[in-house]
């Protein structure tokens, strides 16, 4: 197993872990978005979806643990790479020319990632905790009403929307970056992958962001 650990600890190995975990998270977000968009189908549908998930709780738990591990690896490796990469250039340039040779998406992965992390903590604390450990509304299986109630606050919704835009920024670089890391950069197809990544990122940002927007501005209450 020594060779495996050594390989995964090499500069390319760490990138490989970032890319594998990143792609897993990208796939997870698709499922998560589809699930969340059922909110637009009204209280009955959404509450039923959540109730149905309750019936397969053991499976959900397994997925949650895998997801947690993926996040831990992704975050741990991302921060480790960031620290090591800063150490590789102990003295900074007086004039920072990076805006002239690299786009803002690629230069801010650790910053956008950190915002996503803060969001994740807040998000889990509000929704995951209430859905799993109960709250006055979720105890009555009124999950939809709980979501609607949460997004009444301008501050909370604003934070959500901002975080989703940042997520889109992170994904726009991450998507194509993962392909490059795996070595799938082909002259003919890579520009398509870049566009696909941008479209995916916009769908994620708009899709997830539309939920707080809806409850803040278009939802009249019950």
């Amino acid at each position: 197993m020594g060779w495996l650990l050594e390989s995964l600890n090499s500069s390319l190995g760490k990138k490989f872990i970032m890319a594998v975990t990143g792609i897993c998270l990208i796939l997870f977000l698709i499922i998560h978005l589809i699930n969340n968009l059922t909110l637009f189908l009204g209280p009955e549908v959404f509450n039923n979806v959540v109730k149905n998930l309750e019936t397969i709780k053991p499976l959900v738990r397994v997925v949650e643990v895998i997801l947690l591990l993926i996040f831990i690896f992704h975050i741990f490796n991302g921060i480790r790479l960031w620290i090591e990469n800063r150490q590789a250039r102990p003295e900074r340039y007086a004039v920072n020319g990076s805006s002239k040779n690299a786009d803002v998406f690629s230069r801010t992965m650790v910053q956008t990632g950190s915002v996503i992390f803060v969001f994740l903590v807040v998000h889990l604390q509000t929704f995951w905790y209430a859905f799993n450990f109960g709250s006055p509304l979720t105890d009555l299986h009124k999950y939809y009403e709980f979501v609607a109630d949460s997004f009444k606050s301008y501050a909370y919704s604003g934070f959500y929307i901002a975080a989703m835009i940042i997520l889109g920024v992170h994904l726009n670089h991450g998507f194509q970056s993962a392909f490059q890391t795996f070595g799938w950069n082909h002259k003919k197809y890579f520009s398509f992958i870049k566009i696909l990544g941008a479209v995916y990122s916009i769908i994620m940002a708009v899709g997830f962001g539309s939920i707080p927007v809806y409850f803040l501005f278009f939802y009249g209450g019950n």
Partner: protein
Amino acid sequence: MSDGRINLKLKIWKQSGPNFPGSFADFEVQVSPDASFLEMLDELNNDLESKGLEPVAFESDCREGICGTCGLVINGQPHGPIPKIATCQLHMRNFKDEDTIWVEPFRAKAFPVVKDLIVKRSAFDKIMYAGGFVSVNTGGVPDANAILIPKEKAAESFDAAACIGCGACVAACKNASAMLFVSAKVSQFALLPQGQPERYERVQKMVKVMDDLGFGSCTNTYACEAECPKGISVRNIARMNRDYFVAKVKSANLEVEV
């Protein structure tokens, strides 16, 4: 301005040795727009020397963009603001009268400053020793065209081989990663039949030495490609990643010995 010459303010990094602290020194020069950047520094140094002052230390050799010694970071960009040229090919007509120009050495842990603008790039040589060659047995001269190579492969390999080892990719990368250089050197052999026998050994060895020397990890910002004087493509990095992962999975060796 007099007879078309332009006045420039230079802020040049001065550092007397590897373990000394450095700082920027201010200079003012009047230079012909037709002069190259290095000629401008030559004029400055002549002037300094005639006054009994110490010249600015910088490196150069071919002065035609093929040797890779002349790299400077000019206003934050390795080899200056014009794409696909080396510092020696940069002309002063690309600057305006009264511009201030910051001139810094390449900065990376693996490229320590020797003096002023000169950095030690022997880390690249060490990577080359690890695998930047093809081993051949001596013997009779092989027949021409005994090994057929498709035109596109030869061209692609040649594009990778155009790397002059200048280190601008490391200087440009926010992570001081040497991936563009190493991948160019890996690719030029990986694309040709002659490179096949050692293909997967080579990539593992070169990456190992690269890592040991303290270069950062690639985060795919592609700044290297943007600043490379030879336009080396980041597709070479993708190829190297692919070869490396294949090598790690297939190779029977438990340890990479360099």
